[in-house]
């Protein structure tokens, strides 16, 4: 059987993990890196770059390089106007329709961009299984995580992205819940857990009760537009205030990179420097010191914004902070000391952060994937729907059908009738949110119930059934009870893609697949070659290299290595992947003896440092 993986599709970075022999592990590249930056770039020649490759192009091709696309999943252009202003790439779309991202003369929906990242993760996993010599290395099914507070449109967009990437999405799992699964592996005892998840673009709080291996979410809350990105934006606004208003995209990216570095530094040090190299648009460059005190004062309102959802979730769960047994921190932004401090103060206990906060969600997704395919029953996740589901009734008022924090799967029914004699259709507007007025809630979809048998007004009894599945995704069915006629439903998602649109995109992506595949092989060849070049140069630069060469290598060998290295570097810039592969193998072959010598020395040195009895 093909493999099923767990994927954390993050705002900033994405990861893929897999359970082997009951233990979840992150699948890493050759250099041990588990993170794939959620960045996609389109070259002038039509080549796509994903992950680290694309990240490098943030500075060189900012207008063709897309990041933080998760913030646009399942959103309309009206939702994202404010933040689009600070982005170097083009964000557009028809009013009332989904966001479209323009690169050059091509347009992409957010699920299409996310699909590139998912394909990269899928390939990474497949390579990993192939390298291990596994016969079944194909990955065509996955569990993908989303913020707990994602609404129906955002979840559906994530599932569409999976489909576009050639993955059957077995389950959409909430990130904090996935994290708790990863933590709960070896601790099956009972207790109440709070998971505080502050990532790149989203904030979630979930309160869970764990007993007998059942992880039951009691309440969840959050903000799908609050995270590390906002911290970066505050820092950028501060820095850019001193910069002349004419700023090319390159400058914005350079500043963004510099403030992110300073933010990271401030997690360790009391002071950091925001440093931007001089450029034509910014001849003086930027050098600005920022203290942790200054930084904390700046981000305090953001941290405070996480407290309101936390309090609401506690209220909904009917618990006081003191009743929480354990607190778990998830997401890169929980590395900020102020965030840790505030959370610790609220719950009056030290939060858990033993597992890498960047990896814990992917690990949990892998655990859930394993539960689904293995049929193991010792653990069970019972999640909730984060937002109430309702319909618009007379006067534009919301009538709630499934309340927020209801355990899913959940269902609800509502009766409809006609207002005019012989009326054969009824329009239904489905909403998600807590507000009283329909206009203040999120519009999910409009349905038209058709084929109602002609009857006097008010006589038909049409039962509409709303079903939220274990993914938190809604489906609707209807039937007229007097005649038992099932109703046809026409679905118009407010901020999503219709099935036809997804199908068309799939066909488009197959047409592009050939070119994408070639480009991909070239990138792989370059990456591999770069690793070999790097390793060779490192050996040549060793202070003891001359001595080693003299005593252990054949005469002329160092020169041959230098030559092979130069040969490879020569073809690196080109697009002939065969040439790159050939010369890389040549270099590998030439350095074989040197590699063995160095390896033996390393082993000897390591052993020499130890007592004989220890060996």
């Amino acid at each position, binding site marked *: 059987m093909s493999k099923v993986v767990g994927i954390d599709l993050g705002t900033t970075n994405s990861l893929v993990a897999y359970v082997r022999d009951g233990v979840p592990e992150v699948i890493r590249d050759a250099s041990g890196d588990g993170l794939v930056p959620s960045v996609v770039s389109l070259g002038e020649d039509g080549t796509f770059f994903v992950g680290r490759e694309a990240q490098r192009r943030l500075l060189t091709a900012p207008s063709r390089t897309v990041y933080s696309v998760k913030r646009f999943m399942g959103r309309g252009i009206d939702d994202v106007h404010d933040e689009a202003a600070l982005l170097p790439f083009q964000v557009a779309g028809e009013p009332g329709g989904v966001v479209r991202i323009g690169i050059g003369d091509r347009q992409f929906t957010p699920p299409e961009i996310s699909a590139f990242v998912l394909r990269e993760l899928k390939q990474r996993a497949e390579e990993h299984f192939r390298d291990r010599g596994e016969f079944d290395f194909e990955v065509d099914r996955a569990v993908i995580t989303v913020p707990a507070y994602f609404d129906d449109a955002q979840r559906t967009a994530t599932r569409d992205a999976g489909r576009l990437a050639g993955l059957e999405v077995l389950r959409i799992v909430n990130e904090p819940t996935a994290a708790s699964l990863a933590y709960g592996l070896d601790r099956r005892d009972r207790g109440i857990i709070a998971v505080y998840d502050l990532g790149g673009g989203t904030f979630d709080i979930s309160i869970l009760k764990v007993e*007998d291996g*059942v992880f*039951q979410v009691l309440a969840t809350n959050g903000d799908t537009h609050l995270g590390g990105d906002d911290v970066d934006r505050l820092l950028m606004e501060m820095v850019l205030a001193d910069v002349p208003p004419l700023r090319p995209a390159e400058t914005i990216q350079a500043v963004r990179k510099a403030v992110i570095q300073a933010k990271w530094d401030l997690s360790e040090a009391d002071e950091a420097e925001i440093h931007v190299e001089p450029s034509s648009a910014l001849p003086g460059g930027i050098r600005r010191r920022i203290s942790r005190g200054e930084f904390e004062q700046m981000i305090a309102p953001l941290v405070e914004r996480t407290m309101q959802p936390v309090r609401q979730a506690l209220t909904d769960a009917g618990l006081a902070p003191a009743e929480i047994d354990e607190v778990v921190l998830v997401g890169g932004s929980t590395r900020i000391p102020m965030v840790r401090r505030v959370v610790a103060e609220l719950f009056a206990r030290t939060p858990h952060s033993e597992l890498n906060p960047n990896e814990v969600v992917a690990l949990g997704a892998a655990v859930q994937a394993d539960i689904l395919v293995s049929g193991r*029953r010792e653990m*069970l*996740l019972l999640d909730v729907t984060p937002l109430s589901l309702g319909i618009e009734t007379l006067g534009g008022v919301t009538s709630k059908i499934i309340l927020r924090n209801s*355990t899913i799967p*959940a*269902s609800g029914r509502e009766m409809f009738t006609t207002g005019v004699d012989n009326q054969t259709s009824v329009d239904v507007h489905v909403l998600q949110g807590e507000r009283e007025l329909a206009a203040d809630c999120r519009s999910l979809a409009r349905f038209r119930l058709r084929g109602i048998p002609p009857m006097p007004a008010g006589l038909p009894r049409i039962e509409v059934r709303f079903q939220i599945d*274990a993914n938190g995704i809604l489906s609707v069915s209807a039937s007229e009870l007097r005649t038992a006629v099932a109703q046809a439903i026409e679905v118009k998602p407010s901020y999503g893609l219709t099935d036809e649109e997804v199908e068309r995109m799939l066909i488009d992506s197959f047409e592009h697949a050939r070119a994408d595949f070639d480009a991909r092989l070239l990138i792989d060849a370059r990456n591999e070659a770069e690793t070999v070049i790097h390793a060779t140069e490192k050996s040549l630069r060793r202070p003891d290299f001359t001595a080693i060469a003299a005593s252990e290598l054949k005469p002329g060998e160092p020169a041959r290595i230098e030559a092979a290295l130069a040969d490879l570097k020569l073809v690196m810039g080109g697009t002939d992947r065969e040439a790159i592969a050939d010369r890389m193998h040549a270099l590998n072959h030439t350095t074989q003896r040197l590699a063995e010598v160095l390896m033996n020395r390393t082993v000897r040195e390591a052993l020499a440092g130890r007592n004989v009895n220890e060996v």
Partner: protein
Amino acid sequence: MTPDPIPVNPVSTLECRTCGAGAPVDEHFCPQCSRILALGRHGDYFSFFGLPRKLRVDAADLEQRFRDLSRKFHPDYYYNAGPTERLASLERSSYLNDAYRTLRNQALRIEHLLAIEGLPAAKSEVGTALVPPSLLEEVFALNEELDEIREAREAGGEPGELRARLERARTPIDVKRDEHERRVDALCATWDRQIDTGDTAIQKRVTLESLREQLFERKYIDNLLAAIDREAASLGARAG
């Protein structure tokens, strides 16, 4: 024991969609082929949990049953099953979740009992001008006091002082609520005893009617307390 004359559930058996065997309505799995059964038109949350229709529920026991049934029904465990079983799992899980949410909350539990015993609480009663007679005096006094506090707040009155007034206005309502809860508890105990001793339908009906009245009163009290909370929030917001 006298047989219950109130219609309970029109469906008395289920048909297994996998093997075609018949099963009692409260079975979850087919006695013949042991596959999960489609839900059908189940309507009684108590019997779904295997519980008698009693109003005093042991919360820990109910939770344990919920967890046990979740482990049997959850869609997670039916990924490799056929579409019939997958649909049945989805329906049963949804129904279980609705049933658990209803039964663990006393007011919802009473409402559900009334519905399946043929006395549904009319939805439109809530929020109408009809005040339960037992609350007339308190409602009158509270509304007057709330109006005065609101006026004083809008005229710029001292929030601390107004909050204290609000607290005093709340006290009689809290007292009413406590009395109400004791009455409901006593009625629940009566009902449960009647189930055990097999009282006549008429006697049970009297208890149910009283419970319905209490439910109405409860909603009214909750609305009053919500009005006080809203005013308190307005005061707090101004002070902050």
